[in-house]
C-alpha cells in the first residue's frame, strides 16, 4: 500500500500524519505539497489536521480549492482511499467529497480533550477490522467540529450506514454531555458513498502509541492497510 500525506500552508499535524504509518509499518509515506498535482501513486491519501490557511474564512475552505485537491477528488472518484482528520475532514466537506459542514463547537471555544468513540459500522475499509460497538479513546483538538447537515442528508447517512463513529460516554452510550462539540446525532466521523473516503474530527494519529496514552487510533490505519492490500492497488491516472 502506498500512502501520501498532503501538506497545505498552515497544516500542523502533517508531521504527525507522516509519522503515523511510519511508526506503525516502518515505511515512510510520501509528502505532497499543496501546489503540486502529483499524488505520487498513492492508494491512500491522508489529509492531515491543523490549520490550513490559518482556518481563516472557514476551516478548510481555502485548502479545498487548492490545486492538489482536484487530484484528490479525481483519486476518490477512481475509487482511491482518503482519510481526512480534523482539518482534513473539514477540507473533505468543503471540497464536496463528503456531505455536510463543520460548524463552531457549541461551547464557542476550541476543545482539546480525550473522547470516547463508538464504531458504528464495520462496512468500510477503515473499520473492517473493528467490531461494531468497539470503543476507541483518542483526543479531539478543534474549534469547529460541530457536524451539521440537512435532514435529507442525515437520513441518507443513516440509511446507508455511513456514520463511522459517534461520540459516546465511557460506557458507550450516546449522551448529550459526552457530545462536547454539539455535533448532529453525535457524529464524529462519516464515510463517502463508496465508503472509501473517511472524514473524522478526532485524531487517531495522536492515539497510536502507549506512551501517549492510547493505541486505539492505530486500529483505523491498520484496518485500512489490510483492506487496501486485499482489494488490490488503486488504479492510477497517467
Amino acid at each position, binding site marked *: 500500500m502506498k500512502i501520501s500525506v498532503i501538506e497545505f*500552508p498552515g497544516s500542523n499535524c502533517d508531521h504527525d500524519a507522516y509519522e503515523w504509518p511510519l511508526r506503525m509499518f516502518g515505511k515512510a509515506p510520501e509528502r505532497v505539497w499543496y501546489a503540486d498535482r502529483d499524488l505520487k501513486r498513492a492508494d491512500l491519501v491522508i489529509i492531515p489536521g*491543523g490549520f490550513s490557511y490559518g482556518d481563516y474564512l472557514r476551516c478548510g475552505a481555502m485548502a479545498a480549492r487548492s490545486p492538489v485537491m482536484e487530484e484528490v477528488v479525481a483519486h476518490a472518484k477512481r475509487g482511491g482511499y482518503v482519510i481526512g482528520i480534523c482539518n482534513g475532514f473539514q477540507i473533505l466537506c468543503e471540497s464536496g467529497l463528503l456531505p455536510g459542514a463543520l460548524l463552531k463547537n457549541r461551547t464557542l*471555544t476550541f476543545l482539546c480533550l480525550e473522547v470516547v468513540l463508538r464504531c458504528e459500522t464495520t462496512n468500510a475499509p477503515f473499520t473492517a477490522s473493528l467490531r461494531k460497538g468497539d470503543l476507541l479513546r483518542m483526543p479531539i483538538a478543534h474549534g469547529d467540529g460541530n457536524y451539521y447537515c440537512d435532514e435529507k442528508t442525515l437520513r441518507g447517512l443513516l440509511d446507508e450506514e455511513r456514520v463511522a463513529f459517534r461520540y459516546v460516554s465511557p460506557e458507550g452510550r450516546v449522551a448529550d454531555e459526552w457530545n462536547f462539540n454539539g455535533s448532529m446525532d453525535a457524529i464524529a466521523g462519516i464515510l463517502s458513498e463508496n465508503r472509501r473516503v473517511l472524514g473524522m474530527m478526532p485524531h487517531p494519529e495522536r492515539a497510536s502509541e502507549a506512551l501517549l496514552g492510547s493505541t486505539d487510533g492505530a486500529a483505523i490505519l491498520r484496518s485500512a492497510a489490510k483492506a487496501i492490500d486485499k482489494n488490490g492497488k488503486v488504479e492510477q491516472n497517467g
Partner: protein
Amino acid sequence: MAEPKVTPELALAHGLNADEWERLCNILGRVPTYPELGIFSVMWSEHCSYKSSRIHLKKFPTSGPLVLQGPGENAGVVDIGDGWAVCFKMESHNHPSYIEPYQGAATGVGGILRDVFTMGARPIANLNGLFFGQPSHPKTPHLIKGVVAGIGDYGNCIGVPTVGGQVFFHPCYDGNILVNAFTLGLLRADKIFRGYASGVGNPVFYVGSKTGRDGIHGATMASAEFSDETEQKRPTVQVGDPFTEKLLLEACLELMEHDAIVGIQDMGAAGLTSSSFEMAGRAGSGIRIELDKVPMRETGMTPYEVLLSESQERMLIVAKAGAEESVKRVFTKWRLDAVVIGEVTDTGRAEIYWRGEKVVDMPVAPVSDQAPVYDRPQKEPSGLEERKRLDIEALRDCRNPEEALLRMMGSPNLCSRRWVYTQYDQSVRTNTVLGPGYDAALVRIKGTKKAVAMSLDVNPRYCRLDPYEGARLAVAEAARNVACTGARPLAITDCLNFGNPERESVMWEFARSVEGLASACRELDTPVVSGNVSFYNETNGEGIFPTPTVGMVGLLEDVGLRVQSFFEYAGDAVILLGRTRGHVEGSEYLSLIHGLEQGTPPPLDMAREKALLGLLQVLAKERLVHSMHDCSEGGLLVAVAECCLKPRGGDLGASISLQARGKRLDGLLFGEDASRVVASCSSESMQKIFDLARDRGLEATPIGTVIKERLQVLVDGQPMADISLRDLRARWEGGFPSLVSRV
C-alpha cells in the same frame, strides 16, 4: 506630513528625562532628528534597555557545563545530550493584554515563539502564567476569556502544544493582569543561530509580514504606568496573524538548513529599530538601511513610523553575501516577503536612508549597550514588618476540615484549570507524555529515550510577605514539580513582573527577589539562561505584588522511568516525604478562610530541598513509586485530594490517618511547609523508600492507603473528613466555570 521639531519637551513626551536628553545629545554631538529621537526613546526605554534592572540581573548565575547560551540572546540554550539542546524563554505581555486581552495574549505567544525559533529551534511546547484580579471584579471574566482564547488560538493555529502553566487570582491584579508566555524549542546543539550582524557587505533581509502602524510605542508603553489618561491614548493594537507566523516559522527553519544565514533576530518590541541596533551592536559592526524598501501595508508611513512599528511576524536576517537567491527561493515558497533592505558596514554606525536622504546617522554601540543604567534607591515597604507578624494563637483553629477542604477545592486559586487548558491543543506533534494537570509537563524527544520536563511557578503572596524567600520558594517549587516526574532540574528562565521601579519600595522588592532567585539557582545548580523584566505594572499608583515567575526545565534521561502525579492502584501506601511543621502563615487557607495575608512564608531549607529533589529522582529511577505529587498551595490535604482526581477519569481515593503531635489542625492539614511530596507506592517498596529518605536526612511518613470512591481523613484516630470522590470532583471542577460564567 511635517515632522515635529525635536526639543527636550518632545523627548520628555517620549519618556526620556533631562539627563537622558543631555546624554543623547552628547552622543550625537547635536540635536537628534525625529526618527533618531524615536530610536533613542525605544532603545532606552525600560523594556529594551533594562536600565533599572541591569545592575541587579548581574547577580544571576548564568553559566554551567550544560549552558550553551545564557542571557543576552533571543533565548537561552541548554545541552540535553545526544547532540540535542533545548532553547527556552519566557516573556510578559501584560499591558497589551489588559488593553485588548485576546490580541494582547495572542501576540505575546507569537513573540515568544519567534524568540525561540530565531535561535534555530523548533518550538515544541508552550506554557503560560496568568495572574488575574479578583473574580468578582467586573473586568475579570472578560479578561480571562479573552486571554485564554488568545493564547489558545495562537498556539493551536501554529501547532505548538500548550502543556502547562499557572493561574493565580488576587485583587492586586485588578488593574494590571499579568500574561507570561513561555516557549521551549528543540535544536541540534551545534546549530545555534544568533543575532549577529557581521561580515561587511552582507545583505540585510527583511522577511515576513508587511509593516503597518501597529503598536507604535508599545515598548515605551510597557515602560509607563497606567492611568486613566493612558487608557485613552491607546496605540494601534497589534493583531496577531498566527497563520503568517506558521509560514515564517517553516520558512526560517527551512532556510536554516541551507548555509545562508549569518545572523537572525525577530522584530519584537521596538521592531526594526531594536533588531537592527542589537544585531549590529553584538557584532560590533555598522549597518546601512534603506528604509523605504521595507514592505509596507499602509500608505503614507513616515520613517519614524516604519522604524518604530511593532507589526508582528517579521524577522531581520543577515545573509551571507551570495546567498540572496536561496533566501528568496525559500520565502517565495512560503509566500512571504523577503527583501534586501540594507547591508552590514564597518562604520560602527547606523545609517538609515529614506528615499535617498539620510534620516538617521548614529553610533550603534552607545545606543544599544551604553543606555543609562540606574541604581535606583530602595527602601523596605512601610508596614512590611507588621504584615509579617501574625499571632496565630489568636485565630480560631479549623473546626470542620471537611467543609474547609471542599471550600478550598472549589476556590479560584485551587480549583481545576481544566476550563483553561481544554482550550489549548495539548497533544499536537505527538510528544506530550504528561500535559496540563500534572505537576510538570513532560515532552518526549523523538529519536531518543529522553523527555524534557517543565513547570511554571510563583506564589505572589509569599513574595509580598518576603520577596527574597518568596523567590527562593518559587525556584524550589518549580524544581520540585519537575523532579516529581523523575526529571533532573537543569536551568530556569524567569519573568520578573513588578510595579514602578521609581518607587523605592518596588525597587527594594525587585532587588530582594533577584537576590532570592540568584541564591536559589546557585544552590540548586540551575542557572538562569534567559528571562524578562516587566516594570510599571501599576494603575493609579497601585502596584501588583512582586511576581517573579519561574520557568524550570528539567531532563528525564529515560521517559520509561517517568512518574505521574495521581494515585494509580487501590491498596497502595500513601507516604509523605518531607517534614510537616504546620506553617499556616501566608497560606491559601489563611487567605481564603480568615481573609488574612500575613505572617512569613514557609521557611525553606535549601539543603533539604536539594536532598529531596535527589530522592525524587532516585525513587523514579528505581521504579519505587507509582505517583509523586508536590505539596504546595493548600497544603497536605489539598495535595492528597488532588492525587485522587485523575485527568483521564478513573479516580481513586485515599484513607489518610495523621498524628497531630500537638500541632494545630489548620497547620497540619492546610499549612504550606515547603519541601514536601505526597507519593504512593506498593507496600513492598515502602521500607526501601524510608531507607533512601533516611540516608538523605529526610523524613518519610506513611500516612494512609489508596482506596476506591472516597477520601477519608483521620487525625489522632478522629474522623475529620469523609467525602465521596464524586462530590470532591464536582467542587473542584465547578470552580473555574463559575468564575467565567458571568458576562
